[in-house]
């Protein structure tokens, strides 16, 4: 800065101007971008929706304690009771059987029934 000739000063001004314009443009593009939504995932075939639907439900006859805790309203103790119930009474024949377990009220069942399947 201290020893710059006039030519060097002009080059510095030009470089800084380009830098400022680039930063301004980048900021503008970053913050003004529109959100793009797609109904179908472009990369996968027809099975996408079934994979997603399957991944969002849990088979209560096969799930372990860790998996059961993914369900809304189910903590470690309730997950343990579900596993114990399954061990003592065999596999669930219908999802409503969950309500036989201590701590599983109607409200809790209503919340999680859409995420539960029996296979």
């Amino acid at each position, binding site marked *: *800065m201290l020893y710059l000739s006039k030519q060097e000063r*002009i080059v510095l*001004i030009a470089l800084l101007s380009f*830098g400022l314009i680039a930063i301004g443009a980048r900021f503008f593009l970053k913050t003004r*971008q529109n959100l*793009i939504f797609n*109904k179908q995932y472009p990369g996968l075939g027809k099975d996408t929706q079934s*994979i997603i639907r399957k991944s969002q439900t849990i088979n209560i006859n096969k799930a372990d304690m*860790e998996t059961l805790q993914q369900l809304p309203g189910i903590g470690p103790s309730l997950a343990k009771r579900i596993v114990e119930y399954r061990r003592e009474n065999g596999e669930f024949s219908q999802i409503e059987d969950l309500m036989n377990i201590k701590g599983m009220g109607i409200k809790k069942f209503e919340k999680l029934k859409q995420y539960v399947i029996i296979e």
Partner: protein
Amino acid sequence: MISPISFALILFCLGILMEKFISIPFFSLFLISIIFLILAVIKVDKKFYFILFISIAIFLFGALTTKENNAVCKNHFSNFIKQGYSIILSGVVKSKPVLGKYYNKTFSLFMLKTDWLYYNDQWLKTTGLVNVINYKTKDVFDYGDELFIKGEIGKTKRLPILKVKKTGFIKLTAKGKGNSLIKTILIAKDPIRKLIDTNIARPNSDLLAGILLGDRHRIPEHLNKRFKKTGTIHILAISGLHIGLVASVLFLVFSALGIPKNINSVIIILFLIIYCFFTGSRVPVVRATIMFSLFLLSFLLKKENQIYNTLSIAALIILIWNPNQIYNVGFQLSFAAVFSIIYLTPRFEKFFKRPSYFGRLFFVSLSAWLGVAPLIAFYFKIFSPIAILANLIIIPLLFLNIASGITFISFGLMHPFLASFFAPSCWFFSQLLIISTTLFYRVPYGFFEVPRPAKFLVLFYYGCLFGLAGKNSLKKIRKTS
């Protein structure tokens, strides 16, 4: 010593720091910098006013670059996720997956560039990177693979983490989506890894893979600890020192082959760029590659190489690219080390009047230690005076490891016999490295665990160091004017 570039770097850094403490909207800041730039144009003939206005413009440019860098895109993936929630997304693998172990669970870790996110029953086009920890290690993926993943968002301070556990899934939807040049370079690593593993016993093979290929995750924890405590951990991360040593090994080989110096420099620059990709193009490697390429370019263009200029340009390029690097420990350590080596070593040499070769080496080690010791104490709570002595032995050993490693790989790839012929020398030097580090680690009172020093003390120390350098340069300026 304060060259225009160093001066600009200081102003730019101050701008970055200001952005952290004072919040001014981007467009106001942008407008003010344009005004100062116009004022600098008007006063281009008046030295004092020009310096004043352009300095303010550079300072504001630093703050603006930081603001722009920290601004999150509207469609950035992190805007639509919450810690602990499960998400479904697709993206492309951007790094070579590495295997790790956590409480007896093996996982593979890789970086994914997000593409589409399943959000509110629709697919949303997104940007941004996420670190994926895949516990389903049966599936092996590679750079450039397009994946369809369900995982859980984990806790992190930096990049978001996506954990693919039992309840998640990971499916390959396409291959070869990445940059083909990077892919070729990454694929080239596999035969070298195999060559090292089949010819050299562990843990020496792990150490060599870490030193030569940047596979630092492979270095056993007990070795890592010894290097850390003796202040020599920097040799395990590929950084300026490695790049310098690799460049000097190549320079010696090409000179011995009779290749003219100019062509030699061009080949080394190209090699360093490839080596940078080869080792995963992490920030320290990029930084060192920029610095050494600038050194070699100045040699090529027959320009007088001013070391402070080269250092400042490298720092400026890195900070313009990512201003948050200023808070990175690695960035601070390597620039503090290089700065104190180039500033303090000549002064020690002058004070002790022409020391011997070993004396000079000692002063380089001492200068580097003086430059990084407060930072190491601050970040790692370790004070290791043994580092001065340890580096004197470890760095030449590292050079021998790199030289023997390059020879082993170059010949070993030609024929298995040559590989088995050169492998023992590699094993020997890496064993020497392990033994010496272990010996230094066992020296009583070689290192101490200390409480974290106060921030203002560390700042005061570096303020004095830079202030001393600035004072000397001002004296020089007065003399010349």
